């Protein structure tokens, strides 16, 4: 599965007082199953980009190819597109509506016109993937679940469509620390087991650093950086000039290197920073 985005432009309410360029020539491609983090200021175009990839918004100009097939084509059947590309919105639990969790998860597969048997298999698998016990939750109303479980059930609803590409918009927003940790683990597991391309939009730099194989930085509707997480978060000054932060580990490393002569570290996690500090102490001795 590959994604190819070519010079995507999108203008909101053209020729109107509220005219804004949301995407201004976005190009990138993805060829391998991997997790790609997308970061940027609020209003930089991240969510708009995700909605384009899912065919929810038609670009003003430019093309998107999924597996070599152009999805921005006027005649393209969007149900086919959405079969391959799943999109999980921010606070997805707000979209739950069925009487039971199982029925809700089955909503997507049903829209794909699958057989009962196939739907049931997918629902079971999707619930398993997000760490919910089928026998425990299948017949329960989703409104009786805890916040974190609701979110996982909503994600299962998209996973049950068995997409090759999964896009998540702020999947960790508003979760408590425990549910947050669970969600990180879940995303890694889903990517590994289902061999997906995952695009994840987040403001939480620690999460982006921990999850991503590659990071896209967006600003004013453009991709201005596209690199591995180490390389991106090294560019501390450029990011903060844009009003973006770096993972806490990188921020602490910055503060330490200001105080400790000769210390340099470019960590993504606290673990990496601790290793670098120990290494530094050893060499100094």
């Amino acid at each position: 599965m590959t994604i190819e985005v070519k010079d995507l432009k999108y203008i909101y309410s053209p020729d109107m007082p509220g005219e804004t360029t949301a995407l201004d020539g976005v190009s990138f491609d993805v060829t391998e199953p991997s997790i790609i983090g997308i970061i940027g200021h609020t209003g930089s175009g991240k969510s708009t980009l995700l909605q384009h990839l899912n065919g929810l918004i038609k670009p003003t100009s430019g093309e998107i190819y999924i597996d070599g097939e152009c999805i921005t084509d006027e005649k393209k059947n969007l149900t086919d597109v959405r079969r391959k590309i799943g999109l999980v919105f921010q606070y997805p639990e707000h979209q739950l509506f069925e009487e039971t969790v199982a029925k809700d998860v089955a909503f997507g597969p049903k829209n794909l016109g699958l057989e009962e048997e196939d739907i049931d298999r997918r629902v079971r698998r999707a619930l398993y993937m997000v760490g919910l016990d089928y026998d425990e939750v299948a017949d329960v109303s989703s409104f009786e679940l805890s916040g974190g479980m609701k979110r996982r059930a909503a994600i299962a609803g998209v996973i049950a469509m068995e997409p090759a590409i999964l896009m998540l918009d702020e999947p960790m927003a508003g979760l408590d620390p425990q549910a947050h940790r669970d969600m990180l683990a879940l995303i890694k597991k889903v990517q590994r087991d289902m061999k997906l391309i995952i695009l994840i939009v987040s403001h939480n730099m620690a999460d982006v650093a921990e999850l991503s194989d590659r990071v896209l930085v967006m600003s004013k509707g453009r991709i201005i950086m596209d690199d591995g997480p180490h390389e991106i978060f090294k560019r501390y000054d450029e990011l903060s000039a844009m009003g973006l932060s770096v993972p806490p580990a990188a921020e602490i490393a910055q503060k330490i290197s200001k105080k400790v002569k000769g210390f340099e570290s470019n960590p993504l996690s606290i673990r990496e920073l601790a290793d670098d500090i120990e290494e530094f102490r050893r060499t100094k001795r």
Partner: protein
Amino acid sequence: MAYINVEDLVLEFSKYDENGKPLEPKRALDGVSLSIEKGSFTAIVGMNGSGKSTLAKCLNGLLLPTAGTVTVNGMDTKDGGHIWDIRSNIGMVFQNPDNQLVSSIVEDDVAFGPENLGVEPPEIRKRVDEALKKVDMYDHKDKAAHMLSGGQKQRIAIAGAVAMKPSCIVFDEPTAMLDPAGRSKVMDIIEELNKEGITVVLITHFMEEAAEADRILVMQDGRIIGDKTPRELFADEKYIHEAGLELPPVIELRDMLGMDKKILSAEELAANI
């Protein structure tokens, strides 16, 4: 006597089955006692469902105790005659920035509280302007509330509380739905308000935010399981783990390196390398 006194507070939510028969009530608070001094900055942390928001709503009488008492400045929240006095003394800012603004236009929303208190119009005008300046939103006073960002809406909500001239403001996860820029701005305002003498009670998931308080209460299953200064709490992380919470990154690093438990900041840590 302390400004806010909570004694053996128990709060139960009644539950009913499908036929309307009462079930065993759900106990959200299970014997909470604490006192909050005037001008202090208290953070309350805990997992979802630990009872922290319920406790917050008891402080200004939005919820009334099933057992035990809550008094504010000597007034019992159960005494109906004092309820408006209590609420005008204890402002409250909620989590969802969208759902707590009443009026379409920024300044009209800020005026809502003082209007309810029956303040004279010229005085309301003065308070609204001052409050908006305090949260750095004066230039937006004529804007439509729904056009603002989440962080800006939250600042309007804070201005709405400030305009009531409360002596204490309770913040119930005010930054949970904001982006990092919005979060840090809101935290700056909260700290600023506390410096000006307003008592602050901050409920949060974020340990970095709780670390700004004078004192942190750790809640679990409707009880307070820890009541310590940030320095004490972060020196003894068993409370944090027990409550399912997360250590601030610097503390995590300190422990990985096996450094002195007194260390709280990156600078202190650097001095020990």
